[in-house]
């Protein structure tokens, strides 16, 4: 933390660069920025700046660097790994004012946006040209493109279209020195090192992104959405594995288990049968005349795994309602418990049935309720532990169960995160996936970009210390 004298000096210099109303330093102002959606960690920044342009970002970075304080970039704060929690204090750069869609080029199918543009706003702007931006994280109504890029965000439709990294062509980045560089090019596969790919998913540790060129896609001609209902998670998991094995790639294949279904139905009435063990939401897109047989094949596979119901949405409203249940499922969990811990593991899809059984066993062993709503087609699990933090000893059990789930994913040949990133939450788990030599290669790259170590310190890479965050939620958070 800075001394108040240091802070005062930095604030007055910042106010020469950015309008004073966008430089926040009083405790009651900065407290809003102490947390993201990783609800178990919080830390206050010393100063919060909301720059309005890339030039201002560059000036602010220079000033922070001269003052030797950490620089933490933040979008909408919907991140799930604590990536934007300023664990070492310092200066927070909130990029939400830089929210303009600068260009849409329908012929070459790209858009140029500022980092603070909200994900759905980009798709809405592109829709006027019959185009869309593919990555669709659950938070897309709120989360920003800059944050999506920082975390290499995914979403239900990434099964067919790939995660954020597959959709970024070029970016302007303010480096830790304050210099501005342009990485990539609007043409795909620019020569030289793929530094765009490097920055995507780097969680604010390599530079501050101030402009992004994204790929836009054409809307498919037709879409069909199937609700497949099963009595057990096992039957649903086997269906997913077998559909993938037949070579069919749906645009989305989501699983929602009984725990989540009951919460969703109480809150949203999406039309999922409340006595089901699990439902799959399977969507296919393409040319109209190709879809009926594709759906037939999918229904054929599902039919072999004892479904209690297979229902194709008959109208756009019905389809929207089925999706509403999925998209707002996480929020609905608030009905079941005062807190939840949303995990994010990946397994090879063939291992899905086995790992899902393990998740259930872990829940039982710790006496915890775990709800599952996730990207089954990608093998990207989101086991969500429901709990009451006020119960003594509960946090320890929750953290331990979470760790066991991620270990099960890694042992199955998978990974510790599919789309939420590492942040402060999982940095020590990086050692499960990478050797010291592997991690050293990453550290050297970090050092090449940020020799002073000021960009989002304490994130992404393990440093051997116990995470510095408090895992005790504050009193009164839940009313």
């Amino acid at each position, binding site marked *: 933390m800075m001394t108040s004298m240091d802070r005062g000096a930095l604030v007055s210099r910042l106010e020469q660069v950015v309008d004073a109303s966008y430089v926040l330093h009083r405790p009651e102002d900065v407290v809003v920025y102490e947390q993201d959606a990783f609800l178990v960690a919080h830390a206050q920044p010393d100063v919060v700046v909301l720059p309005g342009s890339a030039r201002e970002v560059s000036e602010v970075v220079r000033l922070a660097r001269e003052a030797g304080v950490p620089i933490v970039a933040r979008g909408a704060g919907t991140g799930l790994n604590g990536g934007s929690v300023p664990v070492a204090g310092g200066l927070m750069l909130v990029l939400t004012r830089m929210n303009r869609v600068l260009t849409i080029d329908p*012929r*070459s199918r790209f858009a140029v946006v500022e980092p603070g543009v909200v994900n759905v706003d980009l798709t809405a702007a592109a829709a006027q040209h019959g185009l869309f931006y593919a990555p669709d994280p659950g938070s897309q109504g709120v989360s920003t493109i800059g944050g999506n890029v920082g975390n*290499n965000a*995914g979403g239900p439709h990434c099964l067919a279209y790939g995660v954020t*990294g597959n959709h970024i062509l070029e970016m302007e980045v303010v*480096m830790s020195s304050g210099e*501005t*560089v*342009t*990485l990539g*090019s*609007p*043409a*795909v*596969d*620019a*020569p*030289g*090192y*793929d*530094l765009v*790919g*490097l920055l*995507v*998913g780097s969680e604010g540790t*390599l530079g501050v992104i101030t402009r992004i060129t994204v790929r836009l896609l*054409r809307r498919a*001609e037709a879409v069909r959405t199937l609700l497949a209902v099963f009595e057990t998670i096992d039957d649903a998991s086997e269906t997913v594995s077998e559909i993938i*094995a037949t070579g069919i790639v749906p645009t989305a294949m989501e699983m929602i288990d009984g725990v989540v279904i009951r919460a969703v139905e109480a809150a949203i009435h999406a039309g999922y049968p409340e006595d089901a063990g699990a439902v799959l939401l399977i969507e296919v897109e*393409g*040319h109209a*005349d*190709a879809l009926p*047989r594709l759906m037939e094949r999918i229904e054929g596979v599902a039919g072999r795994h004892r479904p209690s119901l297979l229902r194709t949405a008959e109208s756009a409203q019905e389809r929207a309602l089925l999706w509403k249940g999925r998209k707002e499922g996480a929020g609905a969990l608030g009905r079941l418990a005062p807190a939840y811990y949303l995990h994010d593991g*990946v*397994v*090879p*899809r*063939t291992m899905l049935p086995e790992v899902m059984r393990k998740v259930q066993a872990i829940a039982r062993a710790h006496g915890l309720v775990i709800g599952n709503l996730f990207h089954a087609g990608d093998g990207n699990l989101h086991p969500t532990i429901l709990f009451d933090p006020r119960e003594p000893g509960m946090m320890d059990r929750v953290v331990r169960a979470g760790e066991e789930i991620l270990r099960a994913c890694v042992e199955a*040949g*998978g*990974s510790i*995160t*599919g789309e939420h990133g*590492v942040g402060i939450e999982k940095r020590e788990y*990086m050692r499960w*996936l*990478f*050797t010291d*030599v*592997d991690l050293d*290669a*990453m550290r*050297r*790259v*970090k050092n*090449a*970009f940020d020799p002073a170590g000021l960009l989002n310190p304490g994130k*992404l*890479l393990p440093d051997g210390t116990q995470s510095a965050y408090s895992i005790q939620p504050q009193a009164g958070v839940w009313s």
Partner: protein
Amino acid sequence: MELNGERRAALIAELRRILGDESVLIEDADVIVYEQDGSILQAMPEIVVLPADTAQVCGVVAAAGRAGVPIVPRGSGTGLAGGAVPAEGGVVVSLARLDRILGVDLRNRTAELEPGVINQDVTKGVANDGYFYAPDPSSQAACSIGGNLANNSGGPHTLAYGVTTNHALGVEIVLHDGSVAWLGGVVPDVPGYDLCGVFIGSEGTLGIVTRAVVRLMRSRERVRTLLAIFDRMDDATQAVVDVTSAGIVPAALEMMDKTTIDAIERGAPVGYPRDAEAVLLVEVEGVAEYTDRVMKMVEEICARAGARQVRVAQTEQERQSLWKGRKGAFGALGTLAPNYYVMDGVVPRSKLPETMRAVAEISGRFGVQIANVFHAGDGNLHPNILFDMRTPGALERVIEAGAEILRVCVASGGSLTGEHGIGLEKREYMGWLFSEHDLDAMARVRAAFDPTMSFNPAKIFPTPAACGETRRAPAKIPAGLWL
């Protein structure tokens, strides 16, 4: 960086200890084989080694590092930008003996490969089970996976499936100090920095890949191929724009011009019409109903754009024969001239018609014949400048014409290379695309991996230091070689 007698002898002795005598080549007559790749650039290596496993690669890298000599990895030497040419001498590390397919996991659709595995052999190994490895450079019968990774290779079917980087999940690499790191993983999108992505396309400047896990894809239910024949180049390029604007993504959309057709029909005839100005080879893959309907749409679009004739392959044999012409096109250019210089520019697809007109104009202005055979659907041009190296001044004119073509590509919002890489050939042009700050960011990454700059020096980055040892291939084609 000439090795003097004593240091050279010591290094050779150490390499022989690691690899055995027969895997260390030092005689001029042996190493001269490695002086060139598929480009027109040459430089002699001082030593060539052929390690057989990762441990030997580690030993070689550590030894060369201690001796302070350049280390130049090499696959099959089919690269087109001089990337495997040892511009500053040193040790060429051929990965040709690391050629095992280590494992195939059909259920998770991955294959684990050594770098010397030939591209085509990956697909051959899994085709009977209904799978394939998507990146299919024209050199796929000869080029290696390691070389493909280094150059981020593309191919005709890249239009639908993406280039090599979209198909590599993880790589094991030997770092500058001889240690071994894994970049990426065996599932997609592993956390941490995407160093696998940084490595792919790094042209041997960051380390040596010794193992790779790649993605396999399921073969499609139906494949249909047509040849659309045009009397005007402009109509053919417009058809490309119209197909892609209609939202159709063919599996491949290739163009060949009159000069190329002429070469193919002279060399190994497949029945392309010799009086056409251009032909398009369009392939559509997918489920049967979709494929049939899209094929009809493509036929109609081509006809509307002015195609004289559209031939749809009715049998697998006909389909193969249509492709045979395309795949053999580069070789067939040898029937027109003793040398060709293949360019690899990219333009936004919407700029294709005007760019092709500019290429024709450049051909006239420089007085050079240009054959075009390329991935039209990607906007990835391959103008081949035909010439005879023995004609004084020809090579200089060819290089100037080539640079002019790439300038046009960059000016239209495109790029210097679509799939062949920068190598030695185009490094001085990098400044057209990137600012000094941009290049500096890359240089810092380079230094993070390879602080002594031992791996493949003089590649990718513009450097003031001239490549003293490099020379363009001289006019020394033996009499009778060219028929």
